[in-house]
């Protein structure tokens, strides 16, 4: 994985010094809260319901054991012994003191980590495919491109005060595991007819209150123009994105209002101008970055497991993913135990995951946007030993992409924006479906919960989505069906009137009954929904 050189380290160290100075001026009253707010946000520091929340960047979700140990130590030293992995492959801490923030950033800098631009109206941490570099189906490893974009977007002088936040995802496989088309810019690394590698740009996707799927605005940008093209996309947005209404300020609104064709025309014009400016990094830089992402020394070994232990066999079937080397798999550590808080991990669990990554996965982990953790390169021969250790630490729940693998935002338990609680609902749903044994019959079913219209829990993209709203002071939940964040990206449709908390859990149960009645062959919930449509579900829910 990528390692800082003296330049990267100097940049992160400078940021720590800058933020210490800014926090000190705030504590001395020299900066008003209004002036300090964007500065602290650009360092991932939010003021939440109960305390400051600090979001730490995990670039494209990749980290090593030293970094994971450091994250665990921060949870112990400055928080309450746990952290929360997020849908953008980051981690956040919920109980931080402003006075400690500078020290935490300094601790992070020692292990080549930071909280730069994890919030604020700027380009956020770049996300990517959690199976990058391991997946059998990828064209190339997308992470070198993500790292190049990370450096370009860090402290970009022109784009620190954009109309709104800006999220970029990079993938390099036809299978989309990063919700690429639901980002402000989604990039797919592709090969053209001439056999050259380049970037296909999708611009103007997003969730939130106006969900949109990004249109493809350029199907091939040569690699020696990648940064210049991204810069053109951003400049048009910075100049013409709406600033009169924060709910209409994301780039998706600009692209929608101009039309994809006109936005593209403006980008191409700016691109032609910027090509003359010589702002593109040398291709040698991309080559340098690529040397950090070469394959580890894979060894041939057994290609099958002993399935005599049914619990282990179930975990292998559910939680491992095909690897490009046939003696290896990628193993998913579920952070979704039955009745647990989705994405939470204790310091002890983080230390254990770090140790297991070192022992079994070439010292590497990935955070998934589904709030789980991957060990990307595990020998099939080691799987049983790994599973036994995970299971003993309550990290072996066999529920990847099952109904218990719920994405949920922090909701009203932590977040000052939320209208409703997400976490207790997620806990109750996972308990219900574990207790009634239905999870096993349902197969792949992605359920996602957001506690407000901002959609941090990706409810629009859930096969089943739940949105918490405030209805005259009472928490109310809207149900939607048919969303997808994968290569068949789709936005869910609302079933009808909302439910109270108990009612929405029953409604999810009802919806899954309809699926089981109508399921044909190996159809997933989403396939059945797409075939039979909303009507049978509506009938069962409301008639």
């Amino acid at each position, binding site marked *: 994985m990528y390692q800082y050189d003296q330049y990267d380290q100097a940049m992160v160290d400078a940021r720590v010094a800058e933020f210490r100075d800014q926090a000190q001026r705030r504590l001395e009253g020299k900066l008003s809260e209004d002036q300090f707010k964007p500065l602290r946000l650009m360092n991932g520091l939010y003021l939440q319901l109960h305390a400051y929340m600090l979001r730490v960047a995990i670039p494209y979700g990749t980290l090593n054991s030293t970094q994971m140990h450091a994250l665990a130590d921060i949870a112990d030293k400055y928080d309450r012994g746990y952290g929360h992995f997020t849908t953008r492959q980051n981690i956040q801490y919920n109980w931080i003191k402003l006075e400690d923030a500078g020290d935490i950033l300094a601790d992070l800098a020692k292990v080549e980590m930071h909280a730069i631009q994890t919030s604020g109206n700027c380009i956020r941490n770049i996300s990517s495919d959690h199976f990058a570099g391991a997946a059998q189906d990828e064209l190339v490893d997308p992470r070198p491109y993500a790292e190049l974009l990370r450096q370009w977007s*860090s402290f970009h002088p022109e784009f620190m*005060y954009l109309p709104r936040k800006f999220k970029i995802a990079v993938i390099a496989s036809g299978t989309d595991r990063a919700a690429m088309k639901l980002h402000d810019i989604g990039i797919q690394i592709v090969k053209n007819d001439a056999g050259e590698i380049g970037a296909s740009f999708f611009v103007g996707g997003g969730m939130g209150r106006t969900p949109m799927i990004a249109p493809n605005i350029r199907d091939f940008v040569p690699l020696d123009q990648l940064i210049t093209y991204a810069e053109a996309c951003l400049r048009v947005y910075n100049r013409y994105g709406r600033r009169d209404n924060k709910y209409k300020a994301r780039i998706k609104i600009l692209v929608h209002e101009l039309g994809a064709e006109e936005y593209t025309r403006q980008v191409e014009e700016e691109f032609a101008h910027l090509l003359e400016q010589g702002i593109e*990094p040398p291709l040698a830089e991309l080559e340098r970055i690529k040397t950090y992402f070469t394959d580890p020394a894979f060894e041939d070994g057994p290609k099958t497991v002993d399935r005599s232990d049914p619990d282990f066999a179930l975990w292998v079937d559910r939680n491992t993913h095909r690897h490009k080397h046939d003696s290896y798999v990628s193993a998913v550590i579920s952070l979704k135990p039955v009745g647990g808080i989705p994405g939470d991990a204790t310091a002890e669990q983080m230390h254990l995951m770090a140790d297991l990554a070192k022992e079994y996965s070439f010292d590497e982990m990935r955070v998934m946007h589904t709030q789980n953790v991957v060990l990307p390169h595990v020998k099939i021969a080691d799987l049983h030993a790994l599973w036994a250790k995970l299971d003993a630490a309550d990290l072996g729940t066999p529920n990847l992409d099952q109904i218990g693998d719920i994405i949920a935002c922090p909701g009203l338990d932590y977040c000052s924006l939320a209208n409703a609680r997400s976490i207790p609902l997620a806990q109750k749903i996972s308990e219900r479906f574990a207790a009634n044994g239905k999870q096993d019959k349902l197969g792949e079913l992605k359920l996602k919960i957001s506690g407000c219209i901002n959609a941090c829990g990706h409810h629009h993209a859930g096969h089943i989505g739940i949105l918490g709203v405030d209805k005259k002071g009472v928490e109310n939940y809207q149900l939607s069906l048919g969303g997808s964040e994968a290569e068949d990206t789709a936005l869910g449709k609302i079933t009808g009137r909302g439910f109270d908390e108990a009612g929405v859990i029953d409604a999810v149960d009802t919806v899954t009954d309809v699926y089981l009645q109508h399921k044909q062959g190996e159809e997933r919930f989403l396939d059945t929904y797409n075939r039979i449509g909303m009507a049978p579900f509506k009938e069962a829910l409301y008639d």
Partner: protein
Amino acid sequence: MTDILRFRDDEAVDHPAVTVDAFLEQTNANAVRIEPGDDARDLLPQIGQIQLVEVNFPVFGDGRGYSAARILREAGYEGEIRAVGDVLADQLNNMRRCGFDAFEPDAPLDPEVTKRALDTWPEVYQATTDGRNPIWNKRHE
């Protein structure tokens, strides 16, 4: 006139800047003021006669002025670009990188804070027109 922090040796223009609309109508002005909604490219046909472009920041969170300054520099404009309005110390470094070479904030800047803000960043990742050699070039020299 309030204090202007200037990074130029030439004489400052001593008369008020006109709006972009006024400039486009009266061809003899040499000082223009850009508001966030103005298109800096409208000035380019007559850029040769301009000595001062003021870029107004009514609120510091509106970042359109950063693009305006870069566009002027990219077009070869060598006159003064002055940030005016809600301009804060923590923004000076990025503004310098985008081509601003003078600052006239509504609220006075603390000289010590200003110095620290400008001295904090030893390296830069991106190429702009400010002449600083980006990290990704230094790595391959």
